[in-house]
C-alpha cells in the first residue's frame, strides 16, 4: 500500500457545519485518520441542511454533509456528560490534532479547554474556528457568511455603484476558513517535529474574509482612497473590457477580454477571431481607448457575443491565448472535458445515498496520491469500531452509554 501524505496523524473533528468539516476533509483526503465526533441524536448541523438526495430532508441524505465528510470515520458523543468527557479525554490521548467550532469558552467551561487537554497530551494541536476569534470586543458576536462578507471590505466594493453591496451566492467564507485552518494545523504539526509540543490555534472567520480583501486595505493604507463598487459609467459590462464584464452569450454568460499575454495585443486580432473584422476601428485600438469608448464598444460587441455559444467562445479564445471566462453551471462542471481528463470526479458509494459521483482529487501528490477511502459516516457508524475495538470498551458498557445518551 502506498503511504499517504498525512497518514501518520489522527485528527479529531469536533466541528460542525462547513468550515471545520472542510478543513478536516482536506486532512482526511490526504491521508489523516480523521474521526468525526458528532452530538448524539442530531449529529452535525449540516445534516439538517440541503441539498438533500431527491429533496427529501433526512439526516443521512444531506449532500452538503456527505460532500464535507467523506474519508472520515464517525462517532457520536455527548460532551455534556461525565462519561462522555472521559471518553473524549481518552480519544485526545491518542490524537495529534483537534478541530472545534464551539463559541469561545464553551469547551473550557466543560473542563475541556486547551490547557486541560494538553495535560493529557502535550503534543496536541488544537484549532478553534470561530466567527471573530477568542479575543477582542466582538468575540461573542454572532457570525455567518453574510456577516463576514460585510465586515471584510469586500462586499462594500462589490456590486453596482448605485445599488446595495453584493456578496457571492454561495457561502465561500466557510470554505476559505476551512482551507486556512488546514494549512495552519499542518504547519503546527510540522513545527512539532522540532518543538516536540503542540499548540493552540485561534482562527477567526471574519479575519479570513478581511485577509482576502487585503488589496482594499493596502490601497487605503498606501493612498487614503476608499474604493467603491463598479464604476457608475455605462452598464459595467464591457467597461474596461480587460477586467469587469460578464455578458450574455447564446446559451449563458461569458467573461470576454481582449487581453492576450502581456502586453495586450491589438484589437484587430480579437476581431479576426470573432470573425468580424468589420468592427475594427481606431477608437478601439488600445485598452485606454476601449475604456474611453466603452459604451460604443458595448453597442458593437454585445450583439456579436450574444450570438456565440458560451463554451465555443471560451475555447476559441483560450486556445488562441486570449483570456476568457465562461460562467459554468453545475451541469457544465460535471460535463467538463478538462475535469474528466484530470480524473477529478470519483464514484462514491454510500449505504443510503447509493452510488454518486463526487469532486475528488484537488491536487495530485504523485508519491502519495489522494484516494477515496470512505463515504461520509452514518451518525455513530464507527462507535463500535472505535470505542469497542480500538479503545476497549465492552459491549455492555457501550449499551449502557447508549441508554444514557452518552453515545
Amino acid at each position, binding site marked *: 500500500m502506498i*503511504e499517504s*501524505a498525512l497518514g501518520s496523524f489522527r485528527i479529531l473533528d469536533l466541528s460542525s457545519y462547513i468550515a471545520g468539516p472542510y478543513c478536516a476533509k482536506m486532512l482526511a483526503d490526504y491521508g489523516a485518520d480523521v474521526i468525526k465526533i458528532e452530538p448524539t441524536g442530531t449529529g452535525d448541523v449540516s445534516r439538517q441542511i440541503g*441539498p438533500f438526495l431527491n429533496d427529501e430532508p433526512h439526516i443521512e441524505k444531506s*449532500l*452538503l454533509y456527505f*460532500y464535507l465528510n467523506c474519508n472520515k470515520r464517525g462517532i457520536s458523543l455527548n460532551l455534556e456528560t461525565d462519561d462522555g468527557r472521559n471518553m473524549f479525554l481518552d480519544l485526545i490521548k491518542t490524537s495529534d490534532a483537534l478541530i472545534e467550532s464551539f463559541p469561545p469558552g464553551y469547551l473550557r467551561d466543560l473542563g475541556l479547554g*486547551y490547557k486541560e487537554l494538553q495535560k493529557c497530551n502535550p503534543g496536541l494541536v488544537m484549532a478553534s474556528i470561530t466567527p*471573530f476569534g477568542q479575543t477582542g470586543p*466582538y468575540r461573542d458576536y*454572532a457570525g455567518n*457568511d453574510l*456577516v463576514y462578507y*460585510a*465586515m471584510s*471590505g469586500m462586499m*462594500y*466594493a*462589490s*456590486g453596482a455603484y448605485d445599488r*446595495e*453591496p453584493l456578496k457571492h*451566492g*454561495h457561502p465561500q467564507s466557510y470554505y476559505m476558513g476551512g482551507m486556512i*485552518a488546514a*494549512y495552519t494545523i*499542518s*504547519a*503546527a504539526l*510540522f513545527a512539532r517535529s522540532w518543538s516536540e509540543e503542540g499548540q493552540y490555534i*485561534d*482562527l477567526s472567520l471574519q479575519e479570513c474574509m478581511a*485577509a482576502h480583501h487585503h*488589496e482594499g486595505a*493596502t*490601497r487605503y*493604507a*498606501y*493612498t*487614503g*482612497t*476608499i*474604493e467603491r463598487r463598479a464604476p457608475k459609467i455605462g452598464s459595467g459590462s464591457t467597461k474596461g473590457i480587460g477586467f469587469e464584464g*460578464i455578458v450574455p452569450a447564446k446559451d449563458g*454568460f461569458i*467573461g470576454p477580454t481582449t*487581453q492576450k499575454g502581456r502586453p495586450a495585443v491589438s484589437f484587430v486580432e480579437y476581431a479576426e477571431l470573432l470573425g468580424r473584422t468589420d468592427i475594427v476601428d481606431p477608437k478601439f485600438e488600445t485598452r485606454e481607448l476601449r475604456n474611453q469608448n466603452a459604451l460604443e464598444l458595448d453597442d458593437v460587441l454585445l450583439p456579436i457575443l450574444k450570438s456565440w455559444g458560451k463554451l465555443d467562445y471560451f475555447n476559441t479564445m483560450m486556445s488562441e491565448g486570449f*483570456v476568457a*471566462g465562461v*460562467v*459554468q*453551471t*453545475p451541469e457544465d*462542471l*460535471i460535463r467538463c*472535458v478538462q*475535469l474528466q*481528463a484530470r480524473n477529478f470526479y470519483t464514484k462514491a458509494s454510500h449505504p443510503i445515498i447509493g452510488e454518486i459521483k463526487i469532486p475528488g482529487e484537488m*491536487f495530485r501528490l*504523485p508519491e*502519495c496520491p489522494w484516494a477515496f477511502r470512505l463515504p461520509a459516516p452514518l451518525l455513530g457508524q464507527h462507535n463500535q469500531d472505535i470505542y469497542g475495538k480500538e479503545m476497549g470498551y465492552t459491549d455492555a458498557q457501550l449499551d449502557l452509554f447508549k441508554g444514557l445518551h452518552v453515545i
Partner: protein
Amino acid sequence: MRGALSGLRVIDSTTMVAMPTAMHIMADMGAEVIKVETHTLFRTEAARLMYADNVPGDQPWNRDGAFNTVQRSKLGLTLNLKIKEGVEAFKDLVRVSDVVVENNRAGTMERLGLGYEELKKIKPDLIYLSNTGFGHTGPWSSYAGIGRMFELTCGLSNFTGYIDEGPRRVGKAFFDLHVGWTAVFAILAALHYRQRTGIGQWIDFAMYQVGVSTMGDVILDFIANGRNGSVMGNRHPYMAPHGVYPCKGNDRWIAIAVENDKQWLALSKIIGQQDWTNRIEFTSMDSRWRNQDELDHYISKWTKSLSDVVLMKILQGQGVPAASVMNSRDILTDPHMRARGFYEMIKHAPETGMGSKLYYGRPWKMSKTPSYVRSPAPKLGEHNELILGDLLGRTANQIADLYELGVAGISPTNPSMYKPPTYEEQLNDGTLEGYDENFNEILGSESND
C-alpha cells in the same frame, strides 16, 4: 522568533497574486523565502493605482502596495533565467533549498532547463509545485490561468449577482487567495511525507480544481436533483431576512442574517413590535422566506434612519447576526481588528521615502510559534549579495560579472511608465467613494515624503 516553518528554505519563482500570497504566508511563518525575479520585466504587474501616497517617486517599482503586501517577509534576488549564468545560479540555489514554487505556463520551466526532472537530479528530495490555471494535462492545459476568470469558470458566478440582472463579479480575482492558501497546504502535506520517507515530489497544481472543489454541494445538487441554481443576490436558500439594508449617512449599509425564529423574535423586539412584525406572513422562517420582498421593504424602511454601527451593536447585543458593511477605512480602524492586532505597522527603509505602512496580518494566531511580518518586501535585487555571495559562495568579482551580463540588476531595464490617475480623476471616474488626505494620521502611519 522561531516560527513554525523556520529552517525551511523556499524558492519563490512566482508572479501576480496567488502564489506570492502562499509564499509570504510561509515566510511570515518563518521559512526563508527567496523571491527570484528578473529586473527585465515589469515588477508591478499587479499594480492597481496604489503607489505609496499616490506618488510613483524615483523608484516606483519599490513603492507599489499590491506588490509590497504579498512580497513581505521574503528575501529578494534578481536572476535573468534567459541567460545561462542565471540558470546556473538558480540551480545552485536549488541545491540548498527545500521547495521550489513557480507559476509559469506549462512547459516554460522545462525549456529553461529548470523543470522538475532536471532539478531532481541535483536535489533528489526537492518539493516542486507548479501552479497553472488548469493543470499540466488535459485539453485545457495550455489555457491561460488568470485569477479573475476562475470565479466564472469554477461556477461561482452562476450564483452571484443581482437577481434582476444576472451574473456579476464579487471581489477582484476571487479564487487567487484561496488557491494560494491551498498551495501552502499542498506544500506542507508534501513536506510531511518527505519528513517520514525522505522522498520529494512534483505537484501539478491547478487553480481550476481548487475553485471547483468549493462547489461540491451544488454539484451534488445537480447530480441528485437536476438543479442548476441561479443568481441569489444577497439572499440565502432558506434564511430570511438575509440581506443588506440602507442606513443613515452616505452609502452606509447594514447586513442582517436571521438564522432562526429565536433571532427573529429578538429582531422584532428591537424593531419595536410594529404591526407588520406580527403579521402572519412573517411568523415562520418558511413564510418569511416566501414573503421576503415585502419583509425586506419593511426592514429597509426601519433601518434607513439609523446608524449602521449603532444598529450592529444593538442587534449583536441581542444575538442577531448583523454587521455594518465596512469599507476599507472602517476595517482598518475597527476596534476589534485593532484589539486583535490584525494589521501590522511595518517600517520601510528610509531611502524608499515610504515611512511606515499598515499591512494585513494572518487570520489566525498560533500560541507557540508566532508569525509576523518579518521584514518589508525586498527592494529589487536587495539581497543579491547576501544570497549570491554569502549563501552560494560567489566572489565579489563573479557577482560583478553577473551584473555586467545582465543576469542580476537592481533597477528595471523596462520600468513601468504608468502614472496613477489623480484622486480627482478617480473620483470622477466613479471608482472611489472618497479619499482622506490625512490617512497617515488616521492610521498612525508616517510618510517620509
